């Protein structure tokens, strides 16, 4: 089922008399069950796109079809039953409880005063269970960590019972653990039949959970495709301007330009991986033909030329000493 379809959509904003178009001729489709990551540099129009298709701001040209109906023919009340948002605006409601905040998601369905019916309470309970926030349900919003707050906001979006959920930078301020948790949660929600659109700068995570990427570029048409295709054809590097920085897309890290002394690393796989990373960062080159050999043993133990070391830190110190000798002999 198509939850969103844009037809020659142009987005942007107008300040006074002049209109600034950020993206035009956007023709994309979003189906239920899909996770889409919207990527692009700051100022390219990601947030404007999100606001435009959820009717927060007017579109400049073209049309967006939401749940089979044109955005123009939908009232904001109807849109609120088809699209829910998780925005970067931090709600300033310190002493509202988590349940109260989640319950606000029922506004499109409740009566004039917002009293909750049995069905509303069931949906709230379902959303709280789904996002695993039962343990903080009675807490006040002001007491939550960033990661907890993000899950509460997602629960709020879920209670709106929309087929399309849009999240603007949902993992921007989260630590790795919370990032993974939120992203897995979104993937799970998508699998239950909803469409998820995320705007993000986090390449690693979008590569892992997004079914497709939408890449917004400055003054160029947007690119739409499966992440791996876009890596191979260079579209991602171009959109994010990574080609200047030797970004290693396979490992999601910077490959520093190495001209240092070559070192050979051998041993158990995981430890070898981290040893190599430490060496590269410290300015050594990792080379299988090198003369200096670092042996990595299973019990977090290393040896160079028969000498034992207890940690990577000790190895680096030893290599530094070696390197200064090496330089003085040159």
């Amino acid at each position, binding site marked *: 089922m198509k939850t969103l379809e844009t037809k020659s959509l142009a987005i942007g904003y107008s300040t006074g008399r002049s209109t600034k178009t950020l993206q035009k001729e956007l023709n994309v489709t979003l189906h239920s069950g899909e996770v889409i990551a919207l990527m692009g540099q700051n100022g390219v129009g990601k947030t404007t796109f999100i606001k435009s298709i*959820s009717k927060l701001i007017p579109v400049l040209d073209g049309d967006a079809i939401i749940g089979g109906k044109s955005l123009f023919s939908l009232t904001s009340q109807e849109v609120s039953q088809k699209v829910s948002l998780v925005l970067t605006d931090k*709600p*300033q*409601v310190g*002493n*509202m409880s988590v349940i*109260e905040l989640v319950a*606000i998601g029922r506004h499109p369905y409740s009566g004039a*005063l917002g009293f909750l019916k049995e069905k509303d309470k069931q949906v709230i309970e379902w959303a709280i269970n789904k996002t695993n926030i039962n343990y903080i349900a009675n807490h006040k919003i002001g007491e939550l960590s960033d990661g907890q707050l993000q899950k509460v906001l997602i629960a709020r979006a879920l209670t709106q019972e929309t087929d399309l959920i849009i999240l603007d930078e949902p993992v921007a301020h989260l630590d790795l653990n919370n990032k993974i948790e939120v992203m897995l949660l979104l993937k799970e929600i998508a699998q239950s039949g909803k469409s998820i659109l995320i705007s993000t700068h986090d390449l690693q995570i979008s590569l892992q959970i997004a079914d497709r990427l939408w890449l917004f570029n400055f003054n160029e048409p947007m690119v739409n495709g499966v992440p791996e295709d876009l890596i191979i054809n260079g579209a991602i590097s171009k959109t994010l301007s990574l080609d200047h920085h030797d970004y290693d897309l396979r490992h999601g890290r910077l490959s520093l330009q190495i001209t240092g002394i070559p070192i050979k690393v051998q041993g158990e796989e995981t430890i070898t991986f981290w040893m190599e990373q430490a060496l590269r960062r410290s300015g050594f080159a990792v080379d299988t033909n090198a003369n200096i050999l670092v042996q990595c043993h299973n019990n977090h133990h290393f040896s160079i030329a028969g000498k034992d070391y207890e940690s990577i830190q000790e190895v680096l110190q030893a290599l530094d000493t070696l390197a200064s000798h090496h330089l003085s002999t040159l």
Partner: protein
Amino acid sequence: MIHQYFEESRRKWLLIIGGLSCTLTIAFVLSLALGSVNIPIGKTLQFFIGSSTGERSWDLILLNFRLPKALTAVAVGSALGISGLQMQTLFRNPLAGPFVLGITSGAGLGVALVIFLGFILGGFLELSGIGRNWLLVLSAGMGSFLVLLIVTLTALKIKENVSLLIVGLMFGTVASAVISVLQFFSQSENIQAYVIWSFGSLGSVAWSELYVMMPIVIIGLISSILISKPLNALLLGEHYAISLGINIKRIRLVIIIITSLLAGTITAFCGPVAFMGIAVPHLSRMLFNTSNHLLLTPVIILFGATLMLIFDLIAQLPGSDLSLPINSVTALFGAPFVIYLLIRKKSLNYS
């Protein structure tokens, strides 16, 4: 789990509303009984049931002075508290109050024009008490209505709330400047008359004026309960509110009209009563630990009314013939209360 939560919060709500209603009743009876002449509480209650205390002078005091004054205090406390709450929610700014839109300044300008120009044309000070009162009420009312009109038109034009806030502030500044010019060119009696108006007063509202003031205030308060749901959505910010299906332009207009009506009416009849508008919402949020407008609105109506009655009692200096201007009492006793609560709660992260 959810059901338990809602059951508990319902019970808490009933308890708070019930408790506040009781406190309000007690404060109301006390404010009738105490004053320059203390009437025994038994007799005061008797006045309500049998409509006579048995002593004619007490009957007269209760009917003509204390009852209208107590009703005025109730209206002032609740109306200003509610308009303050709505402004703080609309502008998402804890410093906002009922007067940020320039309503007091408008009312003040109206009053200043009537007092200062009226004197030049002759006759303002010669007017009898009642006629003078109505003239002040009308001029203040016209002043606030004019500001309401300007702010509403601006609100239709301007998209951002903060800009609206600044427009209100600018308007207030202009009005104060005009008042200063008027004061500069006028005589000391007039300046005194204006200064006394600006102290605020609950005692000058007679029954005939109450018949006008009360219905407006009651309509304003009921409407404010009816918009609790969009106000709650606004707490999350404008974007969330729109995405929840709320017509932001319409609700903003409704809020501005309710606030102006409430604050404008109160200012017209009682002068610019300070402090209540900003402080009552904060006190209520801190004491009852909620941001939910469906709970907060009735709480502020009851709590604001109770607080105003208590402040008025203090201003009376019961047992003495003296009384203090109400504005100094609200600030003198209210501000330390707010500071105490802030220090105890250790943060402002409650609104």
